[in-house]
């Protein structure tokens, strides 16, 4: 897990994906490798220690999947569903999520740092210790979610709703917020400035 085997192609700085010595750019059958990994995520009860980066994933249904200790950073997810999925200690940093549904997600120690999320919903989720550092989030809903100890530092939030959320220890320091609602949430327990 998290071995971060570099791609074997000379001069390539990408990481090798699970099941290959190469990244998807240099693998001989990138579609087949990516499809195999995605099939494992959607069909197995839980997946551990998978690496799949730098690919576009469209229309996949990850509902109910248990994604544990995986590196899925720098991917583009379009129209994907993660409803009732569990994401533990996994990395989705510097990814793009477009029109994805994370309803009733259970995430612990997940990383979405530097990601762009547009038109996504996280309603009714438990997202504890989740990292949105530097994320750019537009037209999204976190309504009815527990976000305890999650980090939105240096993020850009536009048309985002945090209605009736637990915001205890949630850090919004240095974030830019436009049309953001905290109605019925305990925003006084969140962190907006530092001494």
């Amino acid at each position, binding site marked *: 897990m998290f071995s971060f085997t570099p791609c074997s192609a000379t001069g390539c700085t990408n990481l090798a994906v699970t099941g290959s010595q190469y990244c998807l750019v240099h693998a001989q059958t990138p579609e087949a490798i990516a499809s195999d990994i995605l099939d494992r995520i959607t069909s197995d009860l839980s997946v551990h220690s998978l690496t799949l980066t730098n690919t576009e994933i469209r229309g996949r249904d990850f509902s109910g999947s248990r994604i544990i200790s995986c590196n899925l950073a720098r991917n583009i997810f379009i129209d994907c569903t993660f409803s009732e999925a569990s994401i533990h200690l996994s990395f989705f940093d510097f990814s793009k999520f477009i029109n994805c549904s994370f309803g009733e997600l259970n995430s612990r120690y997940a990383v979405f*740092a530097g990601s762009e999320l547009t038109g996504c919903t996280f309603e009714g989720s438990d997202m504890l210790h989740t990292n949105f550092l530097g994320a750019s989030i537009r037209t999204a809903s976190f309504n009815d979610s527990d976000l305890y100890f999650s980090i939105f*530092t240096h993020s850009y939030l536009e048309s985002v709703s945090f209605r009736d959320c637990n915001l205890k*220890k949630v850090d919004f*320091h240095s974030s830019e917020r436009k049309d953001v609602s905290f109605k019925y949430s305990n925003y006084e327990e969140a962190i907006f400035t530092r001494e």
Partner: protein
Amino acid sequence: MKIFFHYSVVGFSNSYLIGGENGGDAVLVDPGIMDIELLNMVEENGYYIKYILLTHRHAAHTDGIRTIRKIYDAEVYANNMSVTDVSVHSVADGEHFTLGNLEITALQVPGHSTDSLVYRIGSCLFTGDALFCGRIGPTTSVLSRSLLMRSILEKLIGLDENCLIFPGHGPPSTLKAEKFFNPDLLLAMQHHEPQ
């Protein structure tokens, strides 16, 4: 290598259990508490806590040691000679050592405390209270804050930006995300003149 996380509701701190794929001797980083949840995690995965790594000697990171040592014959590694009356293997800055199958490098990053160590294991950095997601660790004076910033810039920022960060409090992160979005580090990098 597998990594498991455990959250202590007493000191709001993280402990990390690191072991092989199939159980056996394991390393525990910063046992802030030893409770039934952590015990179950160790036992259900077939591990034996053989080694304890301490990032520093504050109670939120060490209070579980005595209980653990009543159950497991664990050796303790830290930057001190003793912690909570337990004798430890004192680790120096830059020291490389092997525990089980894990190659570990200790990096001294003082500022939060004088004995603060960051442990590098493969691509993972266990940063204790030196570096959190989106901020540097708390300090007690302007001088110690300056020391911490300089230590981070000199010891950590130059490492592979694919490195994963597992802090003593809050969610995990990546070195790349911290370099891009951590307001404290951005400020420090602005003012830091390479020596």
